[in-house]
């Protein structure tokens, strides 16, 4: 097989099992780092890493958690590299503000802000469960934690969000 054939074959597999998750990777990265601009960079780097280590993905069916793990690591690398400060909800960039007020729905915006403000430990499993559709067992594997700890975090995250929604409704 020529190098061109090998490249084409690799590219076809990449498009089939990786590219289809591009948007999921972006959404996950956006909620991880809470900045759409950074998320784009993180996902670009993650895509490159996925391309280079595609051979490490033995089963195509395992592509999604594999890619989310890459995004997770790339996000950590990004923040390690940049030594960024934590996000200040009162001092958001235009991109962050646009992300929170994406739809003309005040209740949704309030909830989105509440999710935005959740501690990373609570926000990430929630995103993986609700947005990415992972089971608590899969989330535990992806985050390298015990399933019980994930359940506790999910429970606490929802109770926090429930409180916010109730407060909003009472106003």
């Amino acid at each position: 097989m020529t190098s061109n054939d090998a490249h084409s074959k690799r590219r076809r597999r990449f498009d089939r099992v990786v590219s289809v998750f591009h948007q999921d990777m972006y959404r996950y990265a956006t909620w991880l780092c809470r900045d759409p601009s950074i998320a784009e960079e993180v996902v670009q780097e993650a895509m490159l890493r996925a391309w280079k280590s595609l051979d490490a993905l033995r089963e195509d069916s395992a592509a999604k958690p594999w890619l989310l793990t890459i995004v997770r690591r790339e996000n950590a690398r990004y923040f390690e590299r940049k030594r960024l400060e934590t996000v200040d909800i009162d001092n958001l960039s235009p991109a962050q503000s646009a992300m929170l007020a994406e739809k003309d729905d005040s209740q949704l915006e309030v909830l989105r802000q509440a999710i935005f403000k959740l501690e990373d430990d609570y926000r990430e499993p929630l995103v993986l469960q609700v947005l990415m559709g992972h089971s608590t067992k899969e989330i535990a594997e992806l985050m390298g934690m015990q399933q019980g700890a994930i359940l506790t975090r999910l429970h606490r995250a929802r109770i926090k969000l429930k409180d916010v929604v109730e407060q909003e409704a009472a106003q």
Partner: protein
Amino acid sequence: MTVSGKNMNCEEYKEAIAADPSATFEGADHAAACDSCAAFTVEMQALDAKIAGALAINTPNLEMPELPPIEDDNVVNMPFQGKRRVPTWLAIAASFALAAIIGVQLIGNEAGDGLSLADEILAHLDHEPGAFRETVNPVGDARFSRVVNAKIGTMDRGVGLITYAQSCVINGKTVPHLVLQGENGPITLLLMPDETIDMAKTFMGQGVNGVIIPHGEGSIAIIGENEQSIGEIEQRVIDSVEWSI
């Protein structure tokens, strides 16, 4: 927290259902006999629908990065060696000769600020060799603007075809790392607004040669492959960059 066990009490049930409102677990039938828990389940499922709506942000038109040929991956771990035409012994000898001629000490850690900065630049290039490839695909405007942002300054893109832009940490500071496609191959640029130097300092690494040029209060590193002349592009690069005050 347990999610199993048929004899769940209300507290255990609520904890379990709040952890996963879609869950079907042993003990889930608790709600059938408990109005409070049944109402809580409905409430949690409604909240989850709202959470799903809040999380479903729009995605922009995502750009797929340029995917390098697989052969390049082999080069990644041994940067620049695949293209090196000058023998190692000659490169080393040349670096000693150059140091002697221009009076800049380039070997050894005691050689001063210019050296440590040059060392850091070379180490960084080893870390990001994937950037150093020939391509005709320009980096997107949005990405370029994020990297060469208002805190750094401005750069006239008329300087040439820029195919790579990444914010990188050099000497503890975040600086733009750009790759410009020169006439004889890719040239790496590091725009360092906070690295003040008195005079230009040249350096050589494994298969590369570079220069750090003072520019205002900062400096710019220009690095090409060993056989590549970067002198002709220096002024063009300098003229294209303005630091933010």
